[in-house]
């Protein structure tokens, strides 16, 4: 059979050429970017040699790009309302869920119709997604400057305990920053990769990740390059920031301050609290002095004992979560071979002491706890982008929180329980309640509690076009699918007539595609022409992927096809190659779809073949 000969479509996708891929740790307090060079993963520094980029964004004016990092951080106290820090805490959250300090919100939030919160700044209203995108853009620029070319793909890390809304928000931020997000990777899993590959470890490890604003515990089983997450647990609103807040509240109590204090004072106080906390890892006690107003300056001393009493309840909370994670993984404390510490807050001595007690072994702190996540993400990005075709590494992650549906009486029916390995798909059947009913609403929630109101609402799915039947006759099958990023998608079909019920999704906290497009259009760096150019670019990238993958597939498995099938594939392939060069992104899209159609059967046969090959040699010995 003649093999197809088709010229290379994109210059950047030549085989054997090393593709640039980075891992990004988008942290609450600091962010990092890392890459693999000469087989070695390392974080990238800015021009001044700093690896950590403070996750702080300052907006100065409408026509000016935001300032990101250290320069912005320096203005946190002097320009608190335009200087956004810890924005990760707001991702995928509504205004009412954002933690208050005392009774005050940290920024000037706008009450909007959509549930995505917006912050009033000197550069206009900004959503947490846009603020995060500004941080990602800064890291992208750093990486492209130091690597000297455009990035092919990135892996962005998220707390393992992030729910669907928080993950979606992070992915949207990546999209807004113009990144090709290969994968959202859970932070503890990334840390395990960083440790595991170095030491080719086997066995059960626990990763305890306490960052600035989030806490995660993951129990993993490592075996021959497979990282299998057995369970995960955590709290997306618990971290070092809470230690600072506890200290700040204590200072206010000591100083006898009961009324609200200004934003500037809060920032000032939190900075003093944070410095005191850090200083107490070196010193037994620290002298403090806080000027609340002209007539009230408080001076006092905080020692380790006081600090410990303030943070012990928070540490205890993390230990209860560790215990549950072990049980979910069905392992005992003694089974854990290694405990890995990740995140800046694990520098705290009390945290190390309490964890050492609980796991009955000293935790590992070999790799810089600030960098370990970015390093692991870079290793995964390098594999995903195709630089290591023979690598056996595989990460099998789990869904952190149960997915369910609202049923009668405000109760939740769980469809996919927490700690189920992803990807996963599950179906649930529904029927109509009234004669002739043609529509119904499905409410999807995430969380462990029994009442809908105690769980997170992910979205309402309105099903239309259900064929009219008597009550209870229709069978509507709603399929939930969670992909490797932990993101949910829902489809529905009417089973008795096989009519596809159309779904209208109203995300409770996410952005619609239209909103993202509007944001792109509104952002000063993307004039209208840019959006068009970007649409074309996106379709071209997809076209190149499809063409490249198909060429490799034909070379490898062309024998699975009949001559006639090859011909029809060839026609569609030539067509796509032609329109790819043009500037009509819709036409490119249609041609991709046509080529996909022509290769559906081929793809299925190849999948079957690889499944068969995976277990080849296991045929005989199983039936002993």
């Amino acid at each position: 059979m003649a093999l197809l000969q088709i010229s290379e479509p994109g210059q950047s996708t030549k085989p054997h050429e090393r593709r640039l891929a980075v891992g990004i740790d988008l942290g609450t307090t600091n962010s990092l970017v890392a890459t693999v060079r000469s087989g070695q993963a390392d974080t990238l520094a800015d021009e001044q040699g700093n690896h950590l980029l403070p996750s702080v964004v300052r907006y100065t004016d409408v026509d000016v790009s935001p300032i990101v990092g250290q320069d912005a951080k320096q203005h946190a106290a002097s320009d608190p309302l335009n200087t956004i820090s810890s924005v990760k805490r707001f991702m995928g959250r509504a205004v009412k869920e954002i933690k208050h300090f005392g009774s005050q919100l940290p920024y000037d939030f706008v009450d909007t119709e959509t549930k995505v919160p917006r912050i009033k700044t000197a550069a206009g209203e900004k959503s947490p997604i846009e603020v995060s995108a500004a941080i990602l853009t800064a890291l992208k620029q750093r990486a492209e400057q130091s690597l000297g070319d455009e990035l092919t793909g990135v892996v962005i890390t998220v707390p393992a305990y992030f729910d669907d809304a928080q993950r979606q928000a992070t992915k949207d931020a990546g999209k807004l920053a113009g990144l090709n997000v290969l994968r959202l990777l859970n932070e503890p899993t990334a840390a395990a990769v960083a440790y595991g590959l170095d030491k080719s470890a086997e066995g059960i490890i626990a990763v305890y990740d306490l960052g600035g604003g989030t806490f995660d515990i993951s129990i993993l089983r490592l075996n021959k390059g497979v990282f299998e997450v057995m369970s995960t647990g955590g709290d997306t609103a618990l971290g070092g920031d809470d230690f600072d807040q506890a200290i700040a509240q204590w200072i206010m109590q000591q100083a006898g301050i009961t009324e609200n204090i200004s934003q500037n004072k809060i920032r000032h106080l939190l900075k003093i609290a944070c410095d005191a906390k850090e200083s107490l890892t070196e010193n037994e006690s620290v002298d403090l002095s806080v000027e609340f107003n002209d007539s009230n300056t408080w001076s006092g001393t905080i020692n380790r004992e006081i600090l410990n009493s303030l943070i012990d309840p928070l540490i205890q909370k993390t230990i209860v979560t560790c215990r549950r994670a072990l049980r979910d993984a069905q392992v005992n404390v003694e089974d854990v071979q290694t405990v890995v510490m990740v995140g800046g807050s694990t520098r705290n001595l009390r945290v190390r002491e309490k964890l050492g007690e609980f796991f009955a072994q000293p935790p590992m702190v070999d790799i810089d706890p600030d960098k370990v996540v970015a390093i692991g993400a870079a290793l995964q990005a390098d594999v995903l982008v195709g630089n290591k075709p023979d690598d056996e590494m595989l990460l099998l992650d789990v869904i952190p929180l149960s997915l369910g549906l609202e049923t009668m009486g405000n109760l939740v029916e769980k469809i996919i329980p927490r700690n189920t390995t992803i990807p996963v798909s599950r179906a649930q059947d529904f029927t109509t309640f009234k004669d002739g009913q043609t529509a119904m609403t499905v409410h999807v929630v995430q969380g462990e509690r029994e009442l809908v109101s105690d769980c997170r609402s992910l979205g309402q799915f309105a099903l239309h076009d259900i064929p009219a039947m008597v009550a209870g006759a229709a069978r509507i099958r709603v399929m939930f699918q969670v992909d490797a990023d932990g993101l949910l998608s829902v489809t529905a079909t009417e089973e008795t007539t096989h009519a596809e019920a159309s779904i209208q999704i109203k995300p409770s906290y996410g952005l619609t595609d239209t909103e993202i497009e509007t944001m792109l259009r509104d952002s000063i760096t993307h004039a209208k022409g840019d959006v068009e150019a970007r649409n074309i670019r996106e379709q071209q990238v997809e076209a190149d992927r499809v063409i490249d993958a198909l060429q490799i597939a034909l070379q490898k498995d062309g024998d699975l096809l009949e001559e006639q099938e090859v011909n029809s594939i060839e026609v569609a392939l030539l067509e796509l190659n032609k329109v790819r060069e043009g500037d009509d992104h819709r036409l490119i899209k249609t041609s991709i779809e046509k080529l996909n159609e022509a290769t559906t059967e081929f793809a299925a046969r190849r999948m079957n073949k690889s499944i068969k090959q995976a277990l080849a040699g296991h045929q005989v010995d199983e039936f002993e």
Partner: protein
Amino acid sequence: MSGSQSQNYFEIFRLPIDFHLNTQKLTEHYRELQKAVHPDRFANAGDRDRRLAVQQAANINEAFEVLKSPLKRARYMLILAGVDFNDEHETTQDPEFLMEQMELRESVAAIRGLDDPFSELVKLMQTIEQKKSTMIDTLSQLIDTKEYLDAKVLVQKLQFLEKLLLECENLEQDLADAL
């Protein structure tokens, strides 16, 4: 149907249909299969191929989840053998078992008021786990001897205990939240 979706879960892993399966082989085969189909292996492929990989990986995960859990495996084997489970409308009628369930439930409810609720809860959960494990031994014998209807009754009873364990976990979460 394409790929692994037309095969039963045992066939997917190339294992004989037997309650006493070799869990080590199951796990090894699971890892080999995921290495072949996981969507991360298709990170550079087109959307359609990635979606196909997600479906295949999800199906293999589902099969693994069912086979590695003794209770789910038993229920699945009974379904393969033609036993009909109509969960919503059927439930066990055994008065002795139901009485015991009520007592266990009362013990769970009483834990909130105790001095050290966490360790009491752990003890209670261990008790339930032990009961479960004894019942699963019996269940495996019933499946071996093809006494499917008795096995079905036992599966239903075990589902009660599973639910009770879930309630214990929820209680623990409540207690932790109150810290």
